[in-house]
């Protein structure tokens, strides 16, 4: 009798232990990320549409002259943007991405590139390109994806989201890349399959 009671109590204690496990919630402001993605991707695709194919890269300067230029004279003027999540890095990444996006658009049109479900550009049909163009497009894709990665990291930092959540941010951005894609562009579904917009 006593043995049975002890066993039941032990079981109850174990069940209590199991059910009282601490749940850790990782902060992820989904709505803010979605809004940021909508604004940022919208700006990139809007600016990209009006960008010339080969935009000048500009002459980079070292830290002190740039800082002094900012503090003392006229800082660079940027296109109007009132997004919630923005800073100099995001603005610059947007500028770079719109330039690269306009370079990539013809390849999206031809179905050579596609928008991945993970928020990055995918080289779908490189075979249809000449080897030299394949090298060029491959470098372009790597450049775009490096900038997108930096952009997602910067958005995470601006929204005070943990680094581990960057893939989730990228997925939210993927929805916006899809929304702003032109008709005929290839889009990857979350299950990995592809469809034409």
């Amino acid at each position, binding site marked *: 009798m006593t043995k049975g009671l002890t066993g039941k109590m032990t079981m109850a204690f174990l069940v209590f232990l199991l059910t009282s496990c601490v749940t850790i919630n990782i902060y992820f402001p989904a709505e803010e990320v979605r809004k940021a993605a909508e604004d940022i991707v919208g700006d990139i695709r809007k600016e990209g549409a009006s960008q010339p194919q080969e935009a000048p890269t500009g002459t980079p300067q070292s830290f*002190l002259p740039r800082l*002094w230029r900012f503090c*003392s004279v006229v800082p660079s003027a940027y296109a109007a943007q009132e997004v919630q999540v923005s800073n100099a890095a995001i603005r610059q990444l947007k500028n770079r991405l719109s330039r690269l996006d306009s370079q990539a658009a013809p390849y999206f049109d031809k179905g050579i590139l596609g928008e991945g479900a993970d928020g990055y550009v995918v*080289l779908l049909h490189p075979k249809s390109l000449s080897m030299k163009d394949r090298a060029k497009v491959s470098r372009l894709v790597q450049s775009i994806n490096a900038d997108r990665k930096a952009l997602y990291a910067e958005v995470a930092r601006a929204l005070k989201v943990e680094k581990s959540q960057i893939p989730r941010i990228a997925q939210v951005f993927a929805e916006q890349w899809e929304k702003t894609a032109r008709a005929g562009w290839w889009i990857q579904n979350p299950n990995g399959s592809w469809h034409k917009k």
Partner: protein
Amino acid sequence: MGYGLCRLWKRLILGCLLGAGLLCGVLSHAAPALGPVPTGGEPALGIAFRTARALGADHPVPSHLGIRIHVEKAFYKVGPLSLKGLQAVLGLERKGGVLRFSLQEAKVDEVAWTGGQRPLRLRHVELNVRGRIEPDGGIQIQEAEVRLPRAGTLWMTGEMAPEGPARLVLGSQRLRLESVLAGFPAPAAGWGLELPAELRATWVRDGTGRWRSNGRIRFRKASFHDAKFLHAGEALGAQVLWSLKGREGGLVQGRLEAQASAGEVLWDRFYVNLSSHPLSIELKGTVNARGKRWHVQQAQVELQEVASVHLAQSSGAWSPFSGRLHLKIPNQDLGPFLELFVREPFQAELPWLSEASWAGRLGADLKLWVGKGLERAIGRIRLQEGRLRGPGKRVDLSGVHVNLPVWYEQGGPSHRRGRTDAGGLVASPVGPAAQVHGLAPGLLSWRAFRISGFELGPARLAIKALRNGISLPEVTVLRFANGQAVRLGPVLVENVWSPRRTGRVKLEADPWDVSPFLPPSLRADMRPVVHLKDQEFILQGERIRAKNPFTVDLFSGTIRVDRLELHHLLSPNREWRLDASWTDVDLEALTRATAFGRISGKLRGSVTGFRFAYGAPISFDLILESQDDTPDKREISVTAIDNLAQVGTSRSPFVGMASLLKVFFKDFPYKKIGIRCRLENDYFTVRGLVNEGGREYLVRRGLLRGVNVINQNPHNRISWNDMMARLSRIGKSGKARVQ
């Protein structure tokens, strides 16, 4: 890229040799004894045949005999070679002691070779053979045609004497070598090969068992690719010539020459047009088939007009592949190599590369231990008469000579570092392995080094190799053209060959006038002097940070830099991070250097969480306060008040009368200036730090006269664009404008 191509060539050559060997095996054992199906032993032959006349051992052989045998479902096995499902019409004709034979429309279900690590099987092989057997037992293959499904047709002629000399000639006009190689494992799933080849090979054996072989394979429009077509070669035209000699089952000596002079190769982001830069390979060495060892006496790989690599006295095992390689790069022009493998592939991501220029001659002498990847490398890399010019000529390094000792160990522990009693950095002595290999210290020197406005004179720095690291163990005094000097060293970088590199650079400069870094227009008004005493800069991956706080003298005040970090040095998203505070900054000198308007007095303040990237600040928290603990006069000009108000509250206290007021009043005394400005997420907030009577003042007037600047809307957030517009109004034409 080189490794992948090397593997490909290796497979091609091995496949070709094995294919040839397979055919030789079939033909050299073409006359086994006839008999019943054996239960064991070798060679084995099983035949089910039907014929008009049976040929038996007990039959007397007539002087002229003609016979046709229809062979069906035969099998044949000798050693590792076996034929299954042989079906043929075997014709035999004996005339004057010579036995003519023919094998017509022969079909073999499967030819298998089980002598290698993996069995090699060829299915549905078709044969047509015509030959004769001499009275002395010698066999002559007058014509043999072997049709391999998908692989194409091979032809062969030859003769062989029993236990005597033999000669075989093998050729094909259009052989699909990839089908012959199908029995070998592909480099990875999804790889595709198309290797249309023209083959001609000769194999000769003398009566003593020695043999020699030479031949040629020509590839036209060959191609290879991975599953994504991002590692690919297309329209490749190449030729491989070989000359081998050896003894059966013993050592094989040989020479191999290969040249690829047509087509294009893409390896990830690296692209080479072989028509512009043909690739040639020359190799001389031996293979010990029994001991599974290889030895390269001499080899050379050259990408014409780009780079050339030599291999000398290298040896190892081939299964699993391992070895010790002696790699030499003869002094050669660095420019074309960097152009092809650095500038072109990376300039989309690193735009500064498009404007950089370089020159010099590069050479190397390295001993490499190869097994599961590169396990160890010891040697040195040399650069002579190097030159590097950065964008806008802000960096110009010339007359560079580098003699860099290299010591790499895969997965090896980094060397232990020590510290002196005083806490200073010391480089550990080079370990015994490096001494064994005579790894003497190296040298880095330059004739002239200009960075921004600084001009460094010639310098020589000793370099030591450490396991997976390098060090500059000595303190070197670097002298600038303006007479200043900094002391650099010791320097220690660990895991230098890995992205997770770490290191320490000791730099002492006390004092160091860094005004040459500033634009020429600012040098007259600003003279920042940095005090780096016993300072170390710590490298961690892509981050460099100052280990200790340091001070900068500027505008008669002192700035204490508590944190200075640079992230992603070579990337376009490189970012500075800074925490600093300052006291006793002369506001008059500061405002004179800007278009803001004159303010006198002393300033203290701080900036925390300052991030600067892409030419603009990302975030900061700035505090600026006038000091009331100094006897200095505290005055602020009408222009400065107006501009301050513009920036802070966007509302001038002069209500558009500043110009008029300036006629009567140049300056107003002030009691206190206190401003806190924060930037986050592209919004500025400006707050006054003087709180009196429920009001927030940016500028608190003096006792008797002056002007208050009150923050009317403390919760106001100013967008980036709005602030830019305000600052733009102030800064236009380098002169403040008062509305």
